[in-house]
């Protein structure tokens, strides 16, 4: 049987895509003919995959990531690769070497990041679902800023084979969609065991979201409504949680004391892992050719200075420093203790509640160029990184607007209870439709 194709030649005024496949093949299956966009750090056989970096310009993977194989087996049409912050390093998609993506709700603002292209493609109506990756909020942040839904799955639930690594111990591939049902459908396709990812767990997903949440106990951490969180955003999110209470849930105040250092622990960990992971980009096996006549240090420095943007180099430097002898104990070792403390805080709270809820982001989408200082950009991740440090599932679902811009309600759950966070998000979504 001849492969069937869909024609995908959309106007893309928000620059959501780096590559589009004008004739995308598909086959039979639960996603037969559904157009799915894939973030550009996920390997797609025969389709250029750049991580939005000049150093991978022209790189065409010789194999599919596990999740891409699963999409194709489910009948989906992979219609293109979406823009992102270079290697996933950013919160706005402005760190793409190929220019920023714009927020479809207001093109003077960023879509969030790092999976900004995937979220914008959905918000602009170009696709109904997309894959993203979430290392410290990179699915949930753009979902919140663009007014769509996105899930960071429990660590280990989705194979990372074929994901171009940035910070292995934190990142997960996950689904973004127009609504919770789309997210559940896509999660059902991509979750499950893969022997090629040694952290993969055999926990497939086959759940249709239910809006029955009577008796659900929701923890409300004070830190998610404290200083640094836009009061208008906090108020919209409180109202959304009030809606869940009307539906039969109860709320329990709680506290995550480790949040005082969670963000620092996150940045020390992810930059350390990045400094090691990104060592492979030297232009030898892929990328721009190093000058083979020069000494290797000189040749590699030249390739990496030209090929990596400033934020990528900054993070490699920070990670190299944090792991260097004399500083390892002060930074990396401390960050790992901090990470255990974050896990312990969640374990303590989850002994008494089913899910934890709060805002996804402390503000609405920034204006383009607003976060030019790296540290101020890092601080925007404060509400999303705890879930990555602990490896727990977390979803962002649209819950209203502030000054015309979408706000996301974040719901976090226990390990492998992605179904439960989805049900809570679905109950909210169905109540406000």
């Amino acid at each position: 049987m001849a492969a069937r194709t869909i024609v995908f030649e959309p106007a893309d005024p928000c620059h959501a895509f780096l590559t589009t496949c004008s004739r995308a093949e598909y086959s039979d299956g639960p996603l037969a003919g559904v157009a799915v966009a894939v973030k550009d750090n996920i390997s797609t056989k025969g389709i250029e995959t750049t991580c939005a970096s000049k150093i991978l310009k022209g790189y065409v993977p010789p194999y599919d990531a596990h999740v891409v194989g699963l999409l194709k087996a489910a009948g989906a049409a992979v219609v293109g690769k979406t823009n992102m912050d270079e290697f996933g390093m950013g919160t706005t998609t402005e760190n793409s070497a190929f220019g920023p993506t714009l927020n479809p709700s207001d093109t003077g603002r960023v879509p969030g990041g790092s999976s900004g292209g995937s979220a914008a493609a959905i918000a602009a109506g170009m696709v109904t679902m997309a894959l993203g990756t979430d290392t410290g909020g990179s699915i949930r942040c753009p979902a919140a800023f663009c007014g769509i839904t996105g899930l960071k799955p429990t660590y280990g639930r989705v194979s990372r084979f074929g994901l171009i690594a940035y910070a292995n111990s934190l990142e997960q591939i996950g689904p973004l969609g127009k609504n919770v049902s789309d997210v559940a459908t896509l999660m059902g396709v991509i979750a499950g065991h893969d022997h090629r990812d040694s952290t993969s767990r055999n926990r497939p997903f086959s759940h249709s979201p239910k809006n029955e949440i009577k008796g659900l106990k929701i923890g409300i951490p004070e830190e998610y409504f404290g200083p640094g969180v836009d009061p208008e955003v906090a108020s919209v999110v409180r109202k959304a949680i009030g809606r869940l209470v009307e539906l039969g849930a109860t709320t329990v105040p709680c506290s995550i004391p480790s949040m005082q250092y969670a963000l620092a622990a996150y940045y020390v960990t992810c930059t350390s892992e990045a400094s090691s992971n990104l060592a492979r980009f030297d232009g030898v096996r892929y990328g721009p050719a190093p000058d083979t006549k020069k000494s290797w240090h000189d040749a590699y420095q030249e390739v990496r200075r030209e090929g990596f943007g400033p934020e990528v180099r900054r993070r490699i430097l920070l990670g190299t420093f944090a792991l260097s002898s004399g500083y390892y104990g002060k930074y990396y070792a401390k960050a790992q203790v901090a990470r255990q403390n974050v896990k312990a805080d969640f374990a303590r709270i989850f002994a008494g509640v089913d899910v934890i809820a709060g805002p996804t982001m402390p503000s609405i989408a920034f204006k383009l160029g607003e976060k030019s200082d790296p540290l101020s950009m890092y601080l925007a991740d404060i509400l999303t990184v705890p879930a990555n440090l602990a490896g727990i599932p977390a979803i962002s679902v649209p819950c209203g607007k502030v000054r015309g811009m979408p706000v996301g309600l974040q719901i976090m759950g226990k390990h492998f209870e992605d179904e439960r966070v989805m049900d809570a998000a679905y109950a909210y979504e169905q109540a406000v439709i």
Partner: protein
Amino acid sequence: MVSEHEVQHIAELADVGINTDELETFTHQFNAILDYFDTLDLVRGDGAAKDDMVNVMREDKIEPSLPQEDVLRNAPAQEDGFIKAPRVM
């Protein structure tokens, strides 16, 4: 405080090139971020990993892999079926 000289040294260790006109900005940002990382001084506890983690390794058996031509396709410099790299000596 980390000096420009130290940032330059780390950049060399990491094989990350820094232009001279970037060095001042990089050093300034580096120090601001490291100041923020000092919140880790508040961390208490021994942090011994409590996870019941085990190594997951496959058997040491040859498995099918990509054909040589596919593997070489992205390499910018090649010679006799090998990938060419800069000189080490």
